[in-house]
């Protein structure tokens, strides 16, 4: 790996030369833009509405992707179980909304708001504690082990959680009551943008802002960044590394919990294996944006959300929802092959 990397890293004389690989990469991106442009010209209204749908979905993905990015940033571990913790967050919020508060498809506002707040807090706390416990039990004992060891335990934990979800939710999809209004906020050329989409999209924003503030401005955030950079040096500076890592998992878990609630409200349908698929989509988003980079994770998630909606919603030469998963994974593979540092990440020796 290092052999090929050095030859690429040599500065080229004269005009910057574009390698074959980057040329292919640029060509693919160009084709994508051409496809989008043709669709935009053909049906501007549909394009705008799909764009908004994708933005909303992408923001929900962003919450999950941030969890991957946070953990990867600090431990360089792909927390495979994260998606399934998100799924359990969906289950938790469903239980509270439908069982504790007995919400149906039509509810009074006075009942919905406390229910949502309680569900949000419960799901966040539940997932945060679950994630922290997972780290303590399955990842921490392997801190000095070969790098693939914690990844394998993470896969194991993922299956365990998935089966917990299977036990609680059953094998069939479970429908969540339409807690939020499905009336239109505004209409673009016959395509409606609905209240529940707007609310879900807007809810993610304060969470994201709060997280940015936490990581960039607070003392705990500083400890997190220091631990991510160099655990030994951070420990020498008096940072409690284990506690900082636990805290990171706590935050990542609470984001997964919030995402669980919002996703349940958005799709009004939850399933025990949604965590696997969405986890991979969110991981792709995190890699697309540059893993370990928080704004990058959100950017990547929004792009993935849009690509998914464009693929399923546009009419001119779009492959359709049968291919969504393949497209997302192809993006993952292409990004890792052509630009492993992602859109916003810095080039690292390990990445290439």
């Amino acid at each position: 790996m290092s052999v090929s990397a050095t030859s690429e890293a040599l500065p080229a004389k004269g005009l910057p030369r574009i390698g074959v690989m980057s040329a292919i990469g640029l060509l693919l991106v160009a084709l994508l833009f051409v496809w989008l442009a043709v669709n935009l010209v053909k049906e501007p209204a549909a394009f705008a509405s799909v764009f908004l749908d994708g933005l909303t979905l992408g923001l929900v993905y962003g919450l999950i992707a941030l969890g991957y990015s946070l953990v990867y940033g600090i431990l360089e571990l792909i927390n495979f179980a994260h998606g399934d913790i998100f799924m359990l967050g969906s289950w938790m919020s469903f239980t509270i909304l439908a069982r504790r508060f007995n919400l149906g498809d039509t509810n009074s506002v006075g009942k919905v708001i406390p229910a949502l707040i309680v569900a949000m807090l419960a799901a966040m706390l539940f997932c945060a504690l679950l994630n922290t416990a997972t780290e303590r039990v399955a990842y921490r004992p392997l801190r000095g082990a070969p790098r693939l060891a914690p990844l394998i335990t993470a896969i194991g934990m993922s299956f365990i959680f998935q089966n917990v979800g299977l036990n609680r939710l059953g094998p069939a999809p479970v429908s969540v009551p339409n807690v939020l209004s499905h009336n239109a906020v505004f209409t673009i050329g016959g395509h409606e943008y609905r209240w529940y989409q707007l609310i879900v999209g807007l809810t993610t924003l304060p969470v994201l802002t709060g997280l940015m503030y936490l990581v960039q401005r607070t003392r705990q955030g500083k400890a997190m960044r220091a631990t991510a950079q160099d655990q030994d040096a951070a420990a020498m500076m008096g940072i409690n590394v284990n506690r900082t890592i636990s805290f990171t998992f706590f935050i990542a878990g609470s984001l997964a919990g919030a995402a669980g609630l919002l996703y349940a409200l958005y799709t009004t349908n939850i399933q025990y294996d949604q965590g696997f698929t969405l986890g991979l989509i969110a991981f792709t988003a995190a890699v697309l944006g540059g893993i370990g980079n928080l704004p990058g994770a959100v950017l990547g998630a929004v792009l993935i959300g849009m690509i998914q909606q464009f693929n399923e919603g546009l009419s001119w030469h779009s492959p359709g929802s049968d291919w969504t998963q393949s497209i997302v994974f192809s993006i993952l593979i292409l990004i890792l092959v052509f630009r492993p540092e992602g859109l916003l990440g810095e080039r690292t020796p390990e990445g290439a």
Partner: protein
Amino acid sequence: MTYPKGMGGAPDLRALWRKQRERWHRLPDQTRRRVILAIQVLVVVVLAPFWWGFAALVAVFFALYWIPQDLAIPTPWRKIRVRATITPLVALTLAIVYPFVRGGIDSLPGVGPWPQMDTAVIMTVYAMMAVGLNIVVGYAGLLDLGYVAFYAVGAYTAAWFASVQFAKQNVHFGSVGVGPTVPGIHISIWILLLLAGIVTAFIGVVIGLPTLRLRGDYLAIVTLGFGEILPQVARNGDSLGGFNLTNGPNGITPIDPPGFGKTLHNATGGFLPDNYLAIANRNNAYFWTGLALVVITVFASIRLRDSRLGRAWIAIREDEVAAAAMGIPLMRTKTWAYASGAFFGGVAGAFFASFKSSTFPNDFSFNISAFILSMVILGGMGNVWGVIVGGAVLAYLNQEGLANIGAKLNSNFGWHLDVPLYAPGIFGAILVIMMLVRPAGLLPSARRRAEFEEGVHDQPLYDAAA
């Protein structure tokens, strides 16, 4: 990067265990031998009245243990180590006679009856796939989470060339049980096993070339991505530009059976079946065929491991930078690991497809990849024998063992638990527990165990002394 012991808070069980083990090793040889013999006799005596078949099996392997490890017969070209040679031969012999004795050997302790013959066939298939994955994960240390893709390619290769899928063609070559007028391509399964292996190895190279530059965990995710894409292509492949490649979710069925044809059948006096489907105890025939494939796979795997290429794989696994510095071409060596692992996955897939006589996109989920991975991890990464045992045991549990255990639990405790439904969770728990307690597996290769204990893998050079 390691931290001082005792910072984690939990009592260091591992150190305690190591201390006890050292005490054990300080005992005189004679004492240790007596203790081991006493334990072995005790185990057999306790088992014998209840499960005499299983007790006999255990007794055989206990007896083999008493062949001195360094006893060797010198031959002109190499020394044959007796224990290491006889143990697999005994195991193979027992496996070959298994279909005959199955009816008369009681049951397995705590689980239920011995595996049915169709389960036994599936056990050989998974053992083969586990040995194949072991080349990638165990030897070369590349975590492959998409092994199911190779299995799928192998299965579909067999399906395309031994079914009525391409009904416009009419090609017949050595296939059995199909009349010459039946449309479609029908080629002998024996050729297809090889062809599936080659096609899959090629796919392995195609997947490997762009991705093997990536670091371990990224590579794992990329392989996972391929493992998800290929089945989706199979699922949507009933109209690729109007062409029906895979018949979509309905799958391709039936697939021609293996067989040796009339000529060989008559020439051997009916010993070789002309068509597996036409004979009464066809699962036995499939089982022996699967066993033969496992033997070939194991032989190839061991020869590969001891070859120059195999030693290069192990060097890369232990320290990629040092291996590159010693002049090992990383990309080429890793790609070969991929291709070899894929080859066996493809052969296993083709054989399995022919056994089931069908192939469906839903057969190829991520669960299968993780399932095969847990076989490798349970058995012991890098050790072929451990991996075979892991593959056979887990395949048995998945196929009928869990159902038997579940039925037993439900009837004894009055539960209503669908145990087989939770198979993935159980295998997940196996992954977690094995990594935490015995990361090198139940039957680890000595080398792999040393790596886990010393932690040489993935350490930067300057840290190697720590």
